[in-house]
């Protein structure tokens, strides 16, 4: 046990570019499905990282933009299958918002295929791993978000920082 030892410098040698995907998953289905992928020892690239929300209905456009703003190359939102939502119908709201997300991204010059909404149940560890690998492969083909992220970063009037602004609740 060591206390507070200074971190090693740098990040260590990684690949030149590894697609970064922020996955925002509902607690009841998709997050459980992702856990099952782990329990089944299925593999997917380390660039995909999951943030847990209680329901996919919690995902606001600001979260998706924030992820791209912070340098993500893709965003994956996961919810329960239609009819299976733990909160009755949150996933239906997410499905409707998908259209908003896509149009929003297009306005920023971000390919809408960088955003994906998937229904993954708690029993679908294999589906999650498949989707994760598929999406990362697709994003690899698209290349890094790069300059588009820069454009988004400079876009005025968006409160995406964690502190302050209307989105700061």
């Amino acid at each position, binding site marked *: 046990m*060591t206390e*507070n*030892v200074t*971190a*090693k410098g740098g*990040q*260590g040698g*990684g690949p030149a570019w*590894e697609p970064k995907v*922020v996955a925002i998953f509902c607690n*009841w*289905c998709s997050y*459980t499905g992702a*856990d099952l*992928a*782990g*329990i089944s*020892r*299925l*593999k*997917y*690239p*380390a*660039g995909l*990282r*999951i*943030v847990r*929300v*209680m*329901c996919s*209905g*919690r*995902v*606001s456009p600001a*979260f998706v933009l*924030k*992820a791209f703003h*912070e*340098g*993500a190359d893709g965003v994956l939102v996961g919810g329960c299958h239609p009819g299976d939502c*733990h*909160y*009755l*119908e*949150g996933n239906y*709201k997410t499905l409707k*918002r998908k259209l908003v997300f896509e149009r929003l991204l297009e306005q920023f010059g971000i390919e809408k295929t960088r955003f994906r909404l998937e229904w993954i*149940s*708690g*029993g*679908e560890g*294999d589906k999650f*791993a498949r989707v994760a690998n598929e999406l990362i492969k697709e994003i690899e083909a698209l290349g890094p978000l790069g300059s588009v992220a820069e454009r988004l970063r400079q876009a005025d009037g968006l409160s*995406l*920082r*964690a502190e302050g602004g*209307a*989105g*700061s*609740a």
Partner: protein
Amino acid sequence: MPGPKIGVYVCHCGSNIADKVDMDALRDFAGELPDVVVSRDYKYMCSDPGQDLIKADIKEYGLERVVVASCSPRMHEPTFKRACEVGGLNPYLMEMANIREQCSWVTVDRGGATRKAKALVRSAVNKARLLEPLEDKSVPVDPKTLIVGGGIAGIEAALKIAEAGYKVYLVEREPSIGGQMAKLDKTFPTLDCAACILTPKMVSAAQNPNITLLTYAEVEDVSGYVGNFEVTIRKRARGVDEKLCNGCGTCQEKCPIKVPNEFEEGMGLRKAIYTPFPQAVPNKPVIDRENCTYYKTGKCRVCERVCPPQAVRFDQEDEIIKERFGAIIVSTGYQPFDPSVGKQWGFGRYDNVITGLQFERLSNASGPTGGKVLLKDGTEPKAVAILHCVGSRDKNYNEYCSRICCMTSVKFAHLVREKTGAKVYDLYMDMRTFGKQYEEFYNRVVAERDIYFIRGKGAEIMEDPVSGGLLVRVEDTLLGVFREIPVDMVVLNVAMCPRPDAQEVAQKFGIQRSADGFFLEYHLKLEPMKTANEGVFIAGTCQAPKDIPDTVGQGAGAAAEALKVVLLGKVTVTPTTAEIRETLCSGCRMCIPLCPYTAISFNEAKGVAVVNEALCKGCGTCAASCPSGALRVRHFDNRQLLSQIEGVCAE
């Protein structure tokens, strides 16, 4: 302004995490993050000494936030919340980073896993910094339990709860409780008859004053949540006044209509007014309105005339029962695989190809042949083939093993020998006799005369067009030869499948299904009866194929789970609900129709939305739509989630 003091605890989980993630690097990285005053790694954070580290540091360093990087929060969040609470820290000030299920177990290379673990820890630290203390609330629990499905699992659960002194409603779709077990003849490995051991339990269930038995009934709707489920049950009209009927059976004797009996697997007949089998509980008939002459033509009414206590009620209507329950046990059972979908087995084409359940009925003394194993033409078979794995362990149908078929086949082999002079050919892929006294039973039957065990999957059944006999084709994998075995009866031991309405039932009770279609348990090994929906438990073959001993075990286990809910008398309600910050609310009312629980209303006087926190479940759909950011979900608010996204993205 300095942030809150944060402690980070990195768990090795033995080698589960440490093998893939550089523990030293991760601990040091965490120590460098802003506001982190202590970072440690330990072999098993969930162990007592691991938890003690946290407790001690809370005192020593005056920690205001704790981050544990270990397994999924679905596994140990309660453990570490409790540790914090004991250590004097509000449990909602603890955050977890899932570096096992979502990092070390799914990543190929150590470099990638370590980078990812760092990102996840940074993300958790970011969120922890912004956490706020919350207090759990509790609400009273309705002390009744609802059990759906009156097979042996449901009966067992009902008896256990009722004997503990608590009220149970046992709802069964069929006219009688008993389920599939009631159809069986002898049960392995002891060969006691199913009815002899099941009937006493069925009768006890009917007589226990704590059990309300609702047969010929179905759950129509479930709302509410653990402690207070509101359930609507439709009790279908029997056409018979259950209070007056004394079960004498005169109506069934005199009814002129005969239709195939579902209970006899289509092999026997029943009347239009009927009890499915002699030991039915309750022993009160129902009128099958689809086949009854009176409902078709308006005439007949023979049963009504002959009924001594005048109990027949043609005008009886369905009864709708609304009740509140603290806990629910779903024990809806399985569906036998339909072998007619695979033409190679000839089921439905050849008279003497039958399913295992049909064999049970033939062998059962109260079945259509009075317990004689006979061919369709009434003669005794001379050679019987028994096929394992029909629809199981077969990628064309179901990949899983149905677990009971090996023992059932061995039992059938014994029964054929006991009841006929026929030779028996048992075609197995692997002999899986795994339970207590099972292997011993198998060894006993292996030694019986004229039973031939052949290792190979029965591939095909053909009829000899000249003799009408059956020909079973199999590759004998021990001899390495292809065999054709002439027999006159084939028993297909078919897979146990999820019921056809499993999806509908799952949605009704808010439970999920695994890839094989069965209901999904919370944890395969450690929480086999719990589901993702708190307060809803599963038992028996609706969860996975299993034999009677395991089914009964789960029934009792589910009863313990339900009793845990009702005995406590109160349930903790999560405080992670939504709140409105009135000063920011513009009164646009966008949130109101979005709430699935109608928890948001509008205060006309103030011109702002109001959240009823007793109704709110904290999904956050409202907050995602609030244009002014007035709606805030505690523990999952915008700042917390945005900072987490920042955390996973940064390098």
